[in-house]
């Protein structure tokens, strides 16, 4: 028993060498090549821990990445100074500003869009507001022959309770109709 244990002790390499030797007996010409092959296999790179690390990193970045943020910006230039849009209105620009008022109606989701100083049917949504504003614009380059220039000031005048979503919707419609001078009315002090 002890003898056999001793011969086994040098490990697999010795065992493999013995096996290789026994093979060599059978096929004498290929004996040397077989031995070489065994030593190549021993020199394989152990990348297990590296793979563990890589998978962990991959999982971390997959889970932390946030793709759903489809956020963009609609640029606006607000009038500088105290008073907000009210001061812009009192400086009396040569062109009469178009005042678009937004009012809540019934449930919070609904909004009424009205032009304050011109008589026109209230647009039913912001798509309609965009249509109306486009038709009102004087822009020969885009086949528009209305009476308002693109630089005509437009003031958005929402009620207190109007949702921000609607305010931005109105602003977006105005910017989309290529008006460049848009401001937001300040709330009346009370």
């Amino acid at each position, binding site marked *: 028993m002890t003898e056999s244990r001793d011969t086994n002790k040098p490990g697999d390499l010795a065992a493999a060498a013995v096996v290789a030797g026994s093979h060599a007996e059978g096929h004498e010409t290929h004996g040397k090549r077989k031995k070489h092959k065994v030593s190549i296999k021993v020199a394989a790179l152990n990348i297990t821990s590296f793979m563990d690390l890589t998978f962990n990193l991959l999982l971390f970045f997959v889970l932390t990445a946030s793709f759903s943020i489809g956020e963009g*910006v609609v640029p606006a230039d607000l009038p500088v100074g105290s008073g*907000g849009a009210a001061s812009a209105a009192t400086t009396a620009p040569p062109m009469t500003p178009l005042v678009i008022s937004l009012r809540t109606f019934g449930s919070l989701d609904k909004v009424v869009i009205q032009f304050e100083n011109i008589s026109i049917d209230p647009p039913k949504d912001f798509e309609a507001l965009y249509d109306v504003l486009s038709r009102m614009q004087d822009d020969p380059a885009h086949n528009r022959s209305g009476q308002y220039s693109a630089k005509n000031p437009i003031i958005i005048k929402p009620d*207190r*309770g*109007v*949702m921000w979503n609607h305010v*931005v*919707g109105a602003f977006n419609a105005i910017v989309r109709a290529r008006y460049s001078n848009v401001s937001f009315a300040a709330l009346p002090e009370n």
Partner: protein
Amino acid sequence: MPKRKKADLPRTELNITSMMDLVLNLLMFFVLTSNFALAELPKVEIPELGAGSQARANEKPDKIVVSVVAEGDSGNAVQIKVGSSNEVAPGDYGRLTQLLLVEKTRSKDVAIDLRADKRLHYESVAPIMKAITEAGISHVNIVAGLPDSE
């Protein structure tokens, strides 16, 4: 005898070379595309504008972002955040102006991204816009959803 049998068995090894290539490529992709600055901003439901949205992708990420967080569907603001660290209580618009004035001295041509929740009422957002203009900043970008890609 059993020893010889073991050596005769074919060594079964998975060839993971192509998988490793794939994994490393994925890793590089996520390392390079992940954006941690946005993750620091408070969660806000931004206004959705549908297909006609004029919103453009944010080119300059180093703007001051003023986020206004809504208190559920009540329409009231519950928190105002300047950037990712400075917090202003709703109603304390004087402090908001102060903070923005400090930011303004740091860089001349300052722009603000107003990132307000779509459920807020105008009375909660208007004073914030007023506070921004009182700080002498006129360039305000309103954060909204990008056009739906249909």
